[in-house]
């Protein structure tokens, strides 16, 4: 079956190159890309990186196939989405045994695999041999089970698919709390006794804290000099105003200097991907709003692009223009707000942030006018947008884009960029060299601030971005200040795109036929990615031809960018940590999913 499938040009080029170097090392996968033998994975990956220019590992996804599919046996699987910086994509699949799922780790080849392999281990339970620090990342150490396995059920589990039978046809309302969560569907460690009353064995100790602190002690020991000094462990967060949510950072300090720092994630984890597998394809659209709740429109955009790839849908021109207008308004808003919050972290207090939020209000007004909601827009549909723009939209948008926003961006620049205090706090802080940034899979302003002119809108144009005249903004120093400069530059470029889009906005239909909410999506897999304001947002979707996604994985920029945080902070003062974190620009809704 799989061999007869038409491979894309890039994939067959890679296949023949691999075949030449490693005979029998790869074969075509079920839907897209190649299946690589685990024993040769590291060699093939190194070859692809060094000789074939696949320098950028975007997404690592764990998959669970309890049944055999299309000639492939029941298995666990890991999918790697590789890219060249020009945009060519290659997907590698590695199959792992169901009894003992182990695959070699690719952290040595692409350090960006680090956090994502940890996520795959946590969620699917595939062990990565050779991973330097294979711990759970979203769940806590000591959690039983792997939540994204098909046989794992959450505490309030009702059904594999919506609608739950209690909703329709039974129609008998009851509260989730009444379903006695602690008697069903909760897995405990084996030595725990649960006969109505949960008994924790004597001397039981959570492994979670040790797992966090012990590696830091090792780092501290490794950096010991002749003069022995005590290191202090400091927890920043999860309840801390400058962590942008519930991020916890554990730092070892020597005086005020950071020795080692690692982010501890998962405090906002809600198993978004499992919820996504229960939902209808369209039902995930409002859930994507809640990923990065600052930029809900762009999350919609990414999901729509990915599903349209699967469904092979054409989007009418007017809808594309509306999408770009919404998307660039989002980028403008996100960058304003992120600069505002960075200032807040730096101790400029609320002034800059409130100036930013003031402008954001107008963009939210536009959203509300078009979609009916200020933040949770749910505006995109497969093959178009939900509703046409209302009458008042274009005049207000024009007034903002042509008159108000350019002035406000200039004003913000006057306000910050010459300010000596702001410069002293941001220049030379958190320097990220270009090669490290690429290796760690950093994207967005973080990457472009380090001098890499990589933008998905240019590298792999989606929607109609190739029809507009705009530039990729790059700065070369890679410090916090340059990331701010990149954001200012991108706001200007967004305004440029918006001006063109508003001038040329065509008339016409806004949806490519009516896609019904219960539409089934043809079997296949797709990785759709967009240039979200915070970096690359990718949706890795697998469909088995049903009304629900078989696998729904999200690669978010905030999550992968956080992998570099420890490196960036090392050697800096504790006060710089918040500046560096602010300049990475994360939203916890998207980090933890």
């Amino acid at each position, binding site marked *: 079956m799989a061999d007869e499938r038409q491979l894309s040009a890039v994939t067959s080029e890679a296949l023949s190159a691999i075949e030449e170097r490693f005979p029998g090392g790869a074969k075509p996968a079920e839907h897209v890309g190649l299946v690589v033998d685990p024993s040769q994975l590291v060699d093939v990956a190194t070859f692809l990186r060094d000789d074939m220019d696949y320098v950028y590992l975007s997404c690592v996804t764990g998959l669970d196939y309890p049944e055999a599919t299309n000639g492939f046996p029941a298995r666990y699987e890991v999918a790697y989405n590789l890219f060249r910086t020009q945009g060519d994509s290659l997907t590698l699949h590695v199959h792992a045994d169901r009894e003992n799922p182990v695959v070699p780790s690719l952290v040595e080849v692409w350090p960006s695999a680090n956090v994502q392999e940890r996520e795959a281990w946590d969620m699917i339970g595939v062990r990565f041999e050779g991973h330097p620090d294979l711990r759970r990342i979203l769940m806590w150490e000591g959690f039983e089970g792997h939540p994204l396995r098909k046989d794992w059920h959450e505490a309030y589990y009702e059904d594999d698919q919506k*609608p739950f039978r*209690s909703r*329709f*046809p039974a*129609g008998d309302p009851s509260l989730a709390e009444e379903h006695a969560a602690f008697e069903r569907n909760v897995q405990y460690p084996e030595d725990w006794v649960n006969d109505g009353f949960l008994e924790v064995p004597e001397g039981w100790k959570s492994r979670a804290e040790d797992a966090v602190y012990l590696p830091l002690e090792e780092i501290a020991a490794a950096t010991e000099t002749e003069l022995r000094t005590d290191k202090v462990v400091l927890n920043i967060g999860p309840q801390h105003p400058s962590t942008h949510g519930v991020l916890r950072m554990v730092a070892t300090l020597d005086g005020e200097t950071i020795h080692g720092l690692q982010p501890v994630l998962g405090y906002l984890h809600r198993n978004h991907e499992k919820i996504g597998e229960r939902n*209808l394809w369209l039902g995930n659209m409002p859930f994507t709003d809640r990923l990065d709740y600052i930029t809900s429109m762009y999350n919609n955009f990414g999901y729509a692009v990915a599903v349209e790839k699967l469904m092979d849908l054409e989007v009418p021109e007017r809808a594309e223009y509306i999408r770009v207008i919404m998307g660039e308004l989002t980028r403008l808003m996100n960058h304003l707000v992120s600069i505002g919050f960075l200032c807040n972290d730096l101790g400029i207090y609320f002034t800059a942030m409130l100036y930013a939020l003031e402008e954001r209000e107008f963009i939210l007004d536009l959203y509300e006018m078009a979609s009916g909601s200020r933040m*949770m827009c749910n505006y995109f549909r497969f093959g178009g947008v939900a509703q046409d723009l209302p009458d008042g939209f274009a005049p207000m948008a024009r007034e903002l884009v042509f008159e108000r926003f350019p002035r406000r961006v200039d004003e913000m620049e006057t306000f910050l960029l010459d300010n*000596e205090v702001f*410069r002293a706090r941001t220049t030379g802080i958190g320097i990220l060299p270009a090669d490290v940034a690429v290796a760690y899979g950093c994207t967005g302003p973080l990457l472009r601030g380090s001098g890499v002119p990589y933008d998905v809108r240019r590298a792999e144009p989606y929607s109609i971005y190739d029809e507009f005249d705009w530039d990729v903004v790059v700065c070369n120093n890679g410090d916090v200040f340059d990331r701010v400069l990149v954001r200012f530059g991108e706001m200007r470029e967004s305004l440029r795109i918006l001006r063109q889009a508003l001038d040329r906005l065509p008339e016409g239909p806004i949806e490519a036929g009516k896609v019904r909410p*219960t539409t089934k999506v043809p079997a296949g897999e797709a990785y759709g990615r967009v240039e979200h304001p915070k970096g690359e947002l990718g949706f890795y979707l697998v469909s088995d031809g049903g009304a629900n996604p078989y696998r729904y994985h999200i690669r978010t920029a905030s999550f992968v960018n956080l992998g570099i945080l420890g490196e960036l902070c090392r050697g800096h003062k504790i006060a710089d940590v918040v500046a560096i974190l602010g300049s990475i620009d994360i939203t916890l809704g998207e980090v933890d999913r």
Partner: protein
Amino acid sequence: MYGLGIAKSLGVTMRHFVVTYLDDLKWFLQGGFGNRYTPEALPERQSPRARGIFTIQYPKEQPPLPERFRVFPFHVVDPETGKSTCTACGMCARVCPPQCIWVRRGKDPDTGRPAKEPEAFFIDVSICMSCGLCVESCPFDAIKMDQDFEVAAYERYDSFLWGLDKLMKPQAHDIALHPSDYARDQGD
């Protein structure tokens, strides 16, 4: 010169401060105290032409809501029959992403066969995520989105489980909320 940048920043802050008061003064000179909160002033002060900082004295004043603004669904009652046009097909319950809709189909009292109306219909608005997919998918336009967002209560459970008695609202309510939608439907 060192310090010039700080002076520039302070200048921006100062300008915001002064402009806010100048704006107040403008409205004061036009109509005295309280004039800046009149229905004529508010839309102007919230528009992109606005200058300075503005505050809305909620709940005394409320900014106008756009027509598409959506909060929770309600049943539209047909003025002729006095009933909802809902046929209990369950489409809304099927598409509802957080599963906050419960539908039970009624039985015809004479024949005992399923009737085309809901016997019970509940929406738990504490679960509802206000996405509006139920309205989009309803084949009979029986539900629409309401705009009443002030639903605070002293208790978390029963107050938010809305049954048909609370969900049924006259068609006039729908027309008042969505005039241009209604006009378009009539035009078709």
